[in-house]
């Protein structure tokens, strides 16, 4: 393990991937209703194009991207638009969402549509096709992919790095993508390389997925300049900056984008879904989602249409166990607790994790004993001990100016190791939103 490429610091949470890693993904049945928020991505919410009563087919555009950093939303099942209303969103807010009553008699086939061969599309137009399909980064941030594929002209990208680390414990959706659709991954890499006008790609996979590494090696096309790099299993290996450090041995400058050092990182499932757009004609309307944890009766990997309510997913997966206590969208390190079973699964939902009472017991917060374990854990070399003291004292300006709060990516490593259970990353998230308020007011 020591010899593998990696980054400095980081933590080793228990992986628990064995629960679902071996379970092949299956198609999830269409629910009776789908809820599609206009904002499933970072950037401006899309603009609704449909009205209550409209009939939509699966894959139809129902909301159009507004502005450059935005993403188009498609109907994920055929049916009738019931309403456009505020609905609980997984981020904890209420968001304008399109409710579609799914037609139980529909075949759910796509409308006949002409799909261009990606090889025939001009390099510069590829990102437009990808924008039309509503592709966003599926690693969790949901940043619109077409924006990434258009890097600033003064910062040319030389290397495409495919992020197949999946460093969050429990999650296995990227793992299943590599095992089940390796050809789509490579096809997606070809499209990405063409869009960027470059030739070289690297796939970074954590060493805890030997079967996926072998599959990707076995199916690697001979005519492609792509290297498979096995990385040390360590959290947060899948963070963009950490992955670039491991693969290129270079640090993305503080405050800059990866393109500043000629790199672009794309999630492996995003690559596979880009290829699927050109292969099947379907825009991004579903993805593999890991439903896992000790709190769910039948864990598994499911290909779930976006907009399916959490309630329906739980029901189809055998229901919750008696001692289920907390439902998290995403992984245990950065995922978000859900308060409402009516929230829909979205493009960025890589996993649904259900923890039991034992696993989320209340732990008393003790005073900081300055042990320095958070300093040794922080992957971007911040001093969470100092930052915690500043955040607690609400000294936000010093927190930004002296302690570099803006470089914190809220990975949770400091909170994970803290023996005094101090909720450091929670404080940092709160401080960030306080700072945003100060800046905008």
């Amino acid at each position, binding site marked *: 393990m020591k010899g593998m490429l990696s980054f400095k610091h980081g933590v080793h*949470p*228990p992986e628990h991937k064995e629960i679902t890693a071996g379970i092949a993904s299956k198609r999830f049945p269409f629910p009776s209703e789908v809820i599609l928020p206009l904002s499933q991505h970072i950037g401006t919410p899309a603009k609704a194009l449909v009205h209550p009563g409209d009939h939509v087919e699966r894959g139809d555009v129902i909301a159009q991207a507004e502005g450059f950093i935005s993403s188009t939303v498609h109907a994920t099942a055929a049916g009738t638009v019931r309403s456009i209303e505020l609905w609980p969103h997984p981020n904890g807010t209420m968001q304008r969402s399109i409710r579609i009553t799914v037609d139980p008699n529909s075949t759910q086939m796509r409308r006949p549509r002409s799909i261009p061969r990606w090889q025939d599309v001009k390099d510069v137009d590829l990102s437009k096709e990808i924008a039309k399909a509503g592709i966003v980064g599926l690693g969790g941030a949901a940043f619109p992919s077409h924006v990434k594929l258009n890097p600033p002209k003064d910062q040319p990208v030389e290397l495409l790095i495919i992020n197949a680390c999946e460093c969050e*414990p429990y999650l296995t959706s990227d793992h299943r993508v590599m095992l089940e659709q390796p050809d789509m991954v490579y096809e997606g890499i070809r499209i990405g390389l063409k869009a960027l006008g470059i030739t070289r790609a690297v796939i970074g996979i954590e060493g805890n997925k030997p079967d996926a590494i072998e599959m990707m090696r076995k199916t690697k096309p001979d005519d492609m300049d792509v290297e498979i790099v096995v990385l040390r299993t360590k959290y947060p290996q899948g963070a963009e*900056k950490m992955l670039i450090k491991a693969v290129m041995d270079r*640090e*993305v*400058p*503080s405050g*800059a984008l990866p393109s500043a050092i000629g790199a672009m990182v794309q999630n492996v499932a995003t690559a596979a879904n880009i290829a699927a757009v050109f292969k099947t004609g379907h825009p991004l309307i579903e993805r593999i989602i890991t439903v896992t944890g000790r*709190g769910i009766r039948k864990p598994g990997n499911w290909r779930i249409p976006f907009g399916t309510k959490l309630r329906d997913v739980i029901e189809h997966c055998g229901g*919750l166990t*008696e*001692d*289920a*206590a*907390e*439902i998290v969208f995403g992984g*245990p*390190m*950065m*995922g978000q*607790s*859900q*308060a*409402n*079973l*009516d929230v829909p699964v979205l493009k960025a939902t890589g996993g649904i*994790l259900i923890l039991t009472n034992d*696993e*989320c017991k209340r*732990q008393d917060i*003790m*005073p*900081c*004993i*300055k*042990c*320095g*374990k958070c*300093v*040794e854990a922080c992957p*971007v*070399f*911040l*001093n969470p001990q*100092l930052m915690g003291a500043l955040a607690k004292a609400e000294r936000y300006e010093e927190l930004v100016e002296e302690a*570099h709060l803006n*470089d914190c990516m*809220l990975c*949770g490593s400091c*909170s*994970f190791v*803290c*023996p*005094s*259970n101090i*909720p450091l*990353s*929670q404080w940092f*998230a709160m401080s960030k939103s306080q700072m945003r308020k100060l800046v905008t007011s």
Partner: protein
Amino acid sequence: MTDSTQVKITASPHVRSAESTVQIMWSVVISLVPVLAASIFFFGPSAILVIGASVAGCLLTERLFGSNPGSVADGSAVITGLLLGLSLPPGFPMWMAFLGGFFGVAFGKLIFGGLGQNIFNPALVGRAFLQAAFPVAITTWPARAGNWWTLQGDNLALPFMTPVVDTATAATPLGNLKFADEPVVTPIFDLFFGTTSGSLGETSALFILIGGLYLAYRGHLNWHIPLSIFVSAFAVSGIFYAIGISQFPPFFMLFSGSIMFGAFYFATDMVTSPVTNKGCWLYGFGIGFLVVIIRIWGGLPEGVMYAILLMNAMVPFINRATQPRLFGTSGKKKKKEAAS
């Protein structure tokens, strides 16, 4: 669970490492078991009386004056009591040990705001107080005489009475070398196993090493600190010894007195040592250097306590000077900004 009214909502991360502050404290206590056993083996019931009195003083003070009644159970007061007790001479009066425990916890820790807030190691604050208040008692080392169960010195002296030491005294290895008319270098073998005169817990390097290595293995002490203390004490005393201005051989320097005990148990107190590893190196080098200087030129035979307390005072400055280099910067970003 059947409906959404029962779900728990917490902030990420939703998993935590198993390590807790309370568990770290108690494993420090467990790691002291070999040293405690050795002190009882070498010094008999006196060890139990002195250490017991000091622990009782610490616990009572924590319970009476601590801001939170549960803080007695966090283990930190027990550690202070054990360490203070182990740093005292075997014949030390119990009431003084009790008073030292009170002073250490009250003025070394609680007055700053309790666990995590103090600048100086509470056990050393207690010991420094005793050194100032009872300079004779704390430097009286009874010779080993009689049976194992014979009390050493005057453990049972009444409060505010001068202890009567009617037994013969024996100089410690450091005293033997520094103040004796014919300086003697105690063999390393005796220092290693602890068959010498000295404070209760400091004489046996072997048992201190066992406990210290256990803590380092568990990740509950920062091994950079003891290592840097040993490296600097060895190097500095080696240089002075080589050029002939010191009579302390470097190996003797490492195994005599309380440097071993201090390096593993007092200097590594997380609250009063630097936060970064780089800072711990500086801190350890400083302690090692000061120990050698005080031992060679100071008025006292031993300098570990003052060396650590002095470096405790430097910790805020060390922390400021050794902040980690932010990822994606050269670490000199701030200066450039200030210049421009």
